[in-house]
C-alpha cells in the first residue's frame, strides 16, 4: 500500500486511508469491450466476477477470468494477485468446437 500512497493522493487528495484501499480494475472481454470496477485490495474477486456477469448479462459458468493468461479464482484478491491500480483482468467466453461439416 505504501508504494501506492502517492498515486492515490494524486487522484483524490482527501481520505487517504480509504482511497489507498481501493483500486480500479479493468475487465476486458474477448470482444474488446471494457468495464472499470473499483474494488478494495482485500476484497475477494468473486464479488467483481459476479458484478461483471450481472452487468453484462453473462452466466457465470460461461466466463473465464484470466490475469496475464492465467486463470484466477474468486477466492483470490487484488492483493494476493499483486494487481495494481489500472490493471486488467481478461474475461473470456466459453469456447466449444466439434468440427466443420
Amino acid at each position: 500500500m505504501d508504494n501506492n500512497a502517492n498515486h492515490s493522493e494524486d487522484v483524490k487528495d482527501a481520505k487517504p486511508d480509504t482511497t489507498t484501499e481501493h483500486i480500479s480494475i479493468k475487465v476486458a472481454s474477448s470482444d474488446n469491450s471494457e468495464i472499470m470496477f473499483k474494488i478494495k485490495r482485500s476484497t475477494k474477486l468473486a464479488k467483481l466476477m459476479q458484478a461483471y456477469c450481472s452487468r453484462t448479462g453473462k452466466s457465470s459458468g460461461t466466463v473465464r477470468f484470466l490475469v496475464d493468461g492465467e486463470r484466477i479464482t474468486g477466492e483470490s484478491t487484488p492483493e494476493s494477485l499483486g494487481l495494481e491500480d489500472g490493471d486488467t483482468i481478461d474475461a473470456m467466453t466459453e469456447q466449444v468446437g466439434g468440427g466443420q461439416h
Partner: protein
Amino acid sequence: MADGARPEWLGPPSAGTSTAAYDSTPAPSQATADDGRADTRSILSVDSSLGFRDTVPLWQSGRVLSPSGSDATTGLVAGAWRRGPAAASGAGKAAGGSGAAEAWLAQLRKKIEDALSVSYPAAVVATSAYDRLRQREESFDERLEKARQQTAFALPANAAEVLKRAAAAGFVVELNNVPVTAHDMATLQDGKWLNDEVINFYMQLIMDRSAKTPALPRVHAFNTFFYSTLCESGYARVRRWTRRTKLFEKDLVIVPVHLGVHWCCAVIDLRQKSIVYYDALLGDDPGCLQTLMGYIRDESRDKCGADIDESEWTLRCDKRIPRQQNGYDCGVFAVMFAEYASRDAPFQFSQENCPFLRRRVTYEIATVSLTPAIA
C-alpha cells in the same frame, strides 16, 4: 497361438520357426525371412496381377512386413503417421507401451497380406476356404479391438468404478486454478463438442507430467485463449502471458487453436525450429503458422533481446495424421495431437479410437493424471 496355426492351404512352412513370425511378439527376423520366402510365389502373383513390378521378392520389397516393433520403418500406424526424425527417435524411448502394439500391427499387416495373397489350390473347396477366412476374420476382430486398447493405453481395471465415484461427487477437480465441473465433463460424452475447460485442463495435465518427468520433452502448453487473443489483439496483449515461463528453455510449445466451431492444435518445436499445424479435418492454415512465427519472433525480441533467424524455421500443415470423420470429435483429436506430441510419440490413434479416448480423457481428468506411464 491356437488361432495363428498355419492353415494348410498356405503351404508348409519352410522352417520350423516360421509360425513364430505369425504370432509371437516380437519374432526373430530370421523367422520373418523364412516365412516370407515360403509365401513368395503367392505374393508375386498378386503383385504382377496388379501390374506391379514382380522382380522384388517379398522380403526385400519393403520392411513393412517385419514384425519388429522397434524398427523405425516398421508399423502400419507409425509408418503412416510418422512426423519426422525427432518423432522417430523419440518413439522407441518415450512411447513405452507402443512397442507391443506396433509389433502387433506389423503382424496384423502380414496376416492381411497373407490372406490376400493366397493362391488357392484346386483341391480346396471354396466354401471351406470361406469358413476359414470367416474364422480368421473373427479372431482378427478380437485382436483388433485388443490392439486399439493397447494403442490407446488401456484404462486400469477399476476405471469404471473410479469414474462412477467421480461422477457422483460432481466431477469437480482443479489444477493450477483451472477448474473442471460436471458441465465441462459432460462435453466428453460421445457425440458432444469439447469445451475450453476440458482442453485447458488437459493442457495443464500435459505440462504437469512434463515437469515431473525428466525423460520427456520440456513442454509449455498455452490455453485456448492464447491463440484467439494473439490473433485479435496482437503480441502486446499476450506479452505478459509468459512472465513466469521461460519459453525458450522449453522443447515444445503447444498451442490449442480454436476456430469458431473447430479445434486444432499447433506445436512449436524449439529444438527443430519448426511449427506444425495439426487439423484433424486436414485443413490448411498458413495464417496460423505465420501468426505463431510472428509470436516467436516478438517473444524472442521481448524476452531475450535477440532476433531469430526465420529462414532456419520450417512451417507446415501436417496432413499425414489421424483424420476426423465426423462433425464432433475434433476436440478429442486436438488434445491427442498435443498429448502424443508432448511425448515425441507418433500419432497412434484414429477416428475409431475416439469413444475410448473420450473415456480415457474423462478418466485422466477425474484422476488428475495422464495414463501413459513414462519410466
